[in-house]
């Protein structure tokens, strides 16, 4: 029996009259790479913020890492990692200081912080850059570091909101190597992207349209279901039906 780490039932968020997220129900299993796709404005970021305990839902139910999104948001935050669309490292701190800072926030001991910093800097090949300001690093390096920092406390789940936006094709693949590696170690990956080749790297993919989840399956299953050869075409077919303008 697969362990479920995220479970939602008719999860909904309204802003006034506007239904940003409209009764979404799905499950994500432990160690899974789950792709959360949708057009701009479909409601992905809002849904993700509810699952991270950053926004209280209007109605419905959701459980993340064993905790309730209405009542146990602080517990959720301790048990997940979140890499936001907007870059979240401190540009005026060095690489090492950023790692130490986040590890400290997540309650690692001094010894653990030291070991973890060494491990990360060596794994990312940043030995020569460890004492440089993060602001001076190329975007691809920042994003790899940002991901590593988001899982520094070995969370059950990590949420990645467009982690590879604007990154070159080679660096994007290096980033996905890190994702695979984390998933191999049992961390569940919940990721959004606009690069549809990356959707193929996920175990399962959901596609949001106008706040709803209109499709959910393995990439191969979705291609078959829509009778097309690529995820691009699956996405076109669904997103073209959207009534809500991408506002």
């Amino acid at each position: 029996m697969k362990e479920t780490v995220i479970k939602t039932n008719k999860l909904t968020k309204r802003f006034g009259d506007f239904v940003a997220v409209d009764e979404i129900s799905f499950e994500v299993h432990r160690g899974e790479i789950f792709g959360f796709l949708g057009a701009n404005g479909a409601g992905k970021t809002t849904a993700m913020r509810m699952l991270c305990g950053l926004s209280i839902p209007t109605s419905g139910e959701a459980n993340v890492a064993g905790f309730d999104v209405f009542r146990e948001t602080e517990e959720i935050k301790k048990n997940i990692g979140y890499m936001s669309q907007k870059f979240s490292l401190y540009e005026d701190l060095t690489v090492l200081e950023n790692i130490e800072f986040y590890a400290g926030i997540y309650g690692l001991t001094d010894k653990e912080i030291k070991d973890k910093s060494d491990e990360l800097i060596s794994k990312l090949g940043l030995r020569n850059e460890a004492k440089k300001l993060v602001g001076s690093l190329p975007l691809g390096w920042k994003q790899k570091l940002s991901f590593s920092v988001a899982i520094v406390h070995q969370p059950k789940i990590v949420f990645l909101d467009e982690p590879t936006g604007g990154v070159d094709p080679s660096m994007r693949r290096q980033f996905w190597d890190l994702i695979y590696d984390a998933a191999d170690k049992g961390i569940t990956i919940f990721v959004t992207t606009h690069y549809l080749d990356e959707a193929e790297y996920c175990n399962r993919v959901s596609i949001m349209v106008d706040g709803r989840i209109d499709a959910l399956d393995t990439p191969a299953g979705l291609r078959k279901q829509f009778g097309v050869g690529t995820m691009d075409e699956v996405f076109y077919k669904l997103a073209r039906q959207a009534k809500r303008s991408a506002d």
Partner: protein
Amino acid sequence: MNAITLSNITKTYNRKTVLAVDDVSFEVGKGEIFGLIGPDGAGKSTLFRLLTTLLIADKGTATVAGHDVVKDFKEIRGLVGYMPGRFSLYQDLTVEENLNFFATVFNTTIKENYELIKDIYVQLEPFKNRRAGKLSGGMKQKLALCCALVHKPEVLFLDEPTTGVDVVSRKEFWEMLHRLKLLGITILVSTSYMDEATRCDRIGLILGGRLLSINTPEDTIKAYPEKLYAAKSDGIYALLKDLRSFEGILSCYAFGEFLHVSLKCAEQEALSYIQSKGHTHVEFKQITPTVEDCFIRLLNQKNEGNGHKDE
């Protein structure tokens, strides 16, 4: 006449300690869509700023619409439209206010060149009273394009206009660029989406401030020197790991549902190796490379070249 010319342009930052653009020369013909493809930090944005007269080169000369970028900077500013990489409209002004503002700055009105922006503006019109900061990614980018077009420029500079934009909006955006091209507008555009590169007339691959190749997308692909294969099995990640540790491999990386593989050894040898590792439902076939493959090859070469990696 060429719409853009650069000859031996070099630009350094930080008291000449950082070389951003290194002896770059190329031309863009009138009405051409020219794509600059390169990783973050390659020097693309610096080139945009030099050509839009916001920076001055250390060495070399450049012209835009027949004017020198240093001497005639004032003329150039009236003749070009520029969409910088970062969203740089006024977030606290509404859609309509932003557009009016840019029209006024360029001494014109929305009405005067309405034909040019009509296709885009009709999509924005339902939100004309919304603040720009409250628009979604796709809409922001359409508004930014409108603002860059409102004075009917001869040359458009678009610095990563589609980053963070979904595939449907990206497709619409490129359809608009092709309509603008038909009107004779020259477009210099940078992108990190390789599928967009194939929609340019010519592309320049840029790395570390140097322009490595300029070609049509078709000829860029033809110049790929090795045979390229697509491989797949039931355990794609295991296959990736296995192939990477195989000595007959030149390169191997994920590409959608397949791995893309190039070899030092014979195809048969690679197949036997894959079989020996116990993979099931193996597919292995030769394919035509994409621009993305060409670019990855170039990046990998460079990374091996300077041995930047720690240990």
